C-alpha cells in the first residue's frame, strides 16, 4: 500500500503524475488549478524521473506541445481551468483527429467569459459534446474526492493509451482546492524507449527504421472519402468505449423512489442530501457518473423503470440533465436543480429542490 498524505486535489494530480511515470507537463497558470504546476515546479521531477515541466507562453502553446509529445508516444499532460480549456479546444480536436493519447485536466470555474474563479460545472457540454470542431469524443473522468484526483491520473493515461484518445479529468474548484486524505501510489518509472516502441511502435514517431514505412501523425485528409473512413473508424472506437468503459457509483439506490443524478463535487453534496432525506423518511438515492463520457445511460435507463423521478443536480444552468432525459426517455419526470456562476449549493437547498420536485412532479 502507498503512503498516506493530506493533500489538495490539485496537489494530488501533480503527485500522481510524477508517480505514474509521466514524461511531460505543459501548462499555463490559471486559478483555481495553479497548484498543479506549482507542485511540479517545487518537486523538480526533471532532476529525479526526468519528467519535463514547462510553463508555456499560453494555453494554445501548451496543447500543441502535448500534440508533439504525444506524437512520440510519450505520456504527456496539461491542466487548465475553463477559459484556458476554451483556448485549447482547437488543439484537442486535432489530438482527437490524430488519435493521440494524452491527459488534460480541467478544474472548472464559473463562466461564461472570464467569469469567476469559484467552482462550477458549466463545462459539461464543452467536455462531452465536442467543444472543439468535428465528430469527436474524449474520455471524461469526473473525480468526487482528492483520492480520485490521484487515481484518475493513472487511469486517464491507461485509457488514453488503450484507445489512442485524449482523456480529460473534469473537476472543479471544490475538489481542486480541498484537502483530504490520499493514499498515493508507488512510483513507477517512466517508459524506456524500448517500452514506448512496444506500446506505441505501430504509430508513434519513434524514429524511422529501414524495416518500416514512415509514421505520419496528422488530422488532415483532403480526400473526403478517406476522411469518412477515418471517421467511421473513430466512431467504431467510440462505440467500443461506450460498451467497455462506463463507470459510475450508486448510493442508496436499492429501494430508492427518487434519484439524484450528480457528478463530482455536486455528487458529494447530494450524498449528504440523501442522508438528510432518508432521515425524514424520503426514499432517495444517488447515481454518480464517474465517466461523464461514456455516460451511464444503460444503468439510468434501468433505474427509470424503478424510480418515480430523477433530479439532475449540477453547478450549471442544466447541461448533464439532457443526458439524464435521454436515458429516461420519457418514462418518468426528469428535472434539474443548479446553482451557478461560482455558487455552490448546500445539501439543504438540494433537499428542498427534491421535495419540490416530488410534490410537483416536474
Amino acid at each position: 500500500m502507498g503512503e498516506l498524505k493530506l493533500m489538495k486535489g490539485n496537489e494530488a494530480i501533480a503527485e500522481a503524475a510524477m508517480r505514474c511515470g509521466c514524461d511531460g507537463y505543459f501548462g499555463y497558470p490559471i486559478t483555481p488549478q495553479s497548484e498543479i504546476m506549482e507542485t511540479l515546479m517545487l518537486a523538480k521531477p526533471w532532476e529525479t524521473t526526468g519528467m519535463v515541466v514547462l510553463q508555456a507562453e499560453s494555453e494554445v502553446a501548451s496543447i500543441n506541445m502535448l500534440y508533439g509529445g504525444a506524437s512520440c508516444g510519450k505520456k504527456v499532460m496539461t491542466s487548465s481551468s475553463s477559459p484556458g480549456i476554451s483556448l485549447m479546444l482547437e488543439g484537442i480536436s486535432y489530438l482527437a483527429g490524430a488519435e493521440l493519447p494524452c491527459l488534460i485536466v480541467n478544474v472548472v470555474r464559473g463562466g461564461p467569459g472570464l467569469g469567476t474563479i469559484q467552482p462550477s460545472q458549466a463545462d459539461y457540454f464543452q467536455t462531452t459534446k465536442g467543444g472543439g470542431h468535428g465528430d469527436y469524443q474524449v474520455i471524461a473522468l469526473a473525480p468526487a474526492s482528492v483520492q480520485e484526483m490521484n487515481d484518475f491520473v493513472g487511469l486517464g493515461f491507461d485509457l488514453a493509451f488503450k484507445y489512442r484518445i485524449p482523456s480529460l479529468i473534469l473537476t472543479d474548484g471544490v475538489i481542486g482546492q480541498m484537502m483530504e486524505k490520499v493514499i498515493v501510489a508507488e512510483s513507477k518509472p517512466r517508459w524506456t524507449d524500448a517500452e514506448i516502441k512496444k506500446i506505441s511502435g505501430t504509430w508513434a514517431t519513434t524514429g524511422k527504421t529501414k524495416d518500416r514505412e514512415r509514421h505520419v501523425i496528422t488530422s488532415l485528409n483532403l480526400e473526403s472519402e478517406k476522411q469518412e473512413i477515418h471517421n467511421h473508424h473513430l466512431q467504431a472506437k467510440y462505440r467500443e468505449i461506450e460498451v467497455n468503459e462506463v463507470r459510475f457509483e450508486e448510493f442508496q439506490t436499492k429501494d430508492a423512489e427518487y434519484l439524484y443524478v450528480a457528478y463530482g463535487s455536486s455528487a458529494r453534496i447530494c450524498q449528504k442530501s440523501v442522508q438528510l432525506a432518508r432521515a425524514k423518511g424520503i426514499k432517495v438515492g444517488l447515481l454518480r457518473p464517474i465517466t461523464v463520457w461514456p455516460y451511464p445511460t444503460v444503468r439510468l435507463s434501468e433505474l427509470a423503470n424503478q424510480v418515480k423521478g430523477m433530479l439532475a443536480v449540477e453547478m450549471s444552468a442544466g447541461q448533464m440533465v439532457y443526458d439524464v432525459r435521454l436515458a429516461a426517455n420519457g418514462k418518468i419526470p426528469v428535472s434539474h436543480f443548479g446553482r451557478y456562476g461560482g455558487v455552490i449549493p448546500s445539501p439543504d437547498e438540494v433537499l428542498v429542490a427534491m421535495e419540490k420536485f416530488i410534490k410537483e412532479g416536474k
Partner: protein
Amino acid sequence: MTEEIIIAGFGGQGVLSMGKILAYSGVMQNQEVTWMPSYGPEMRGGTANVTVIVSDERISSPIVHQYDTAIILNQQSMDKFEKTVKTGGILLFDPNGITHPPKRTDIKIFAIDGVEEATRMGNPKTFNMIVLGAYLKIKPVVKTENVEKGLRKSLPERHHKLIPMNIDAIKLGMEKVKEFSL
C-alpha cells in the same frame, strides 16, 4: 462523531494554517477530514475562511452552510457566520476588533483574548495556536498529542524547533478561554 467547523478571520491571521493543523491532527488519529478554503481574491488584511470537517465516518459533502462550531476572528466574519451556527452549537471569538459582539441565545458562546495573549507571549504568530487551544478545551475533537504529531507532519523540518512554543500556545489558549455572557 462528525464536527463541522468554520474558521474565519483576516488573511494573515493564520486561519488556513490553523485549519490545516486541525485536519492533520484528525488524520493522526485515523479520522476522516476535509479542509476546504475560501479561495477568492484574498490577500493579507482581506477576509479568509476555511471549513474543516473531522469525522469518524466517510465525509459526504465538504461544503456545508451550517456549522457545529464557528471560530470567528474579525467583525466581517461575525456578521457573516454568527447566523450559521447550528442551534446548540458553539461560537468562539476573539473580542479584539469586534464592535458588535454575538447576540444569539440558542448557542454557547466563548471568548479568547488571542491577540492580547500572543502579544504577552512575545510572539504574535502564536495567535492562531492560542485560539486552537481555546477551541480544543471546549471541544476536544483531537488530542493535544495528536496536534503535536500533526504539527510535526505538516511543518517543514526546519520549523520543528518551533513546535514546543506552539504547544505552549495551545495550552495557554486552553487555560484562558472563558464563557462569554451577553
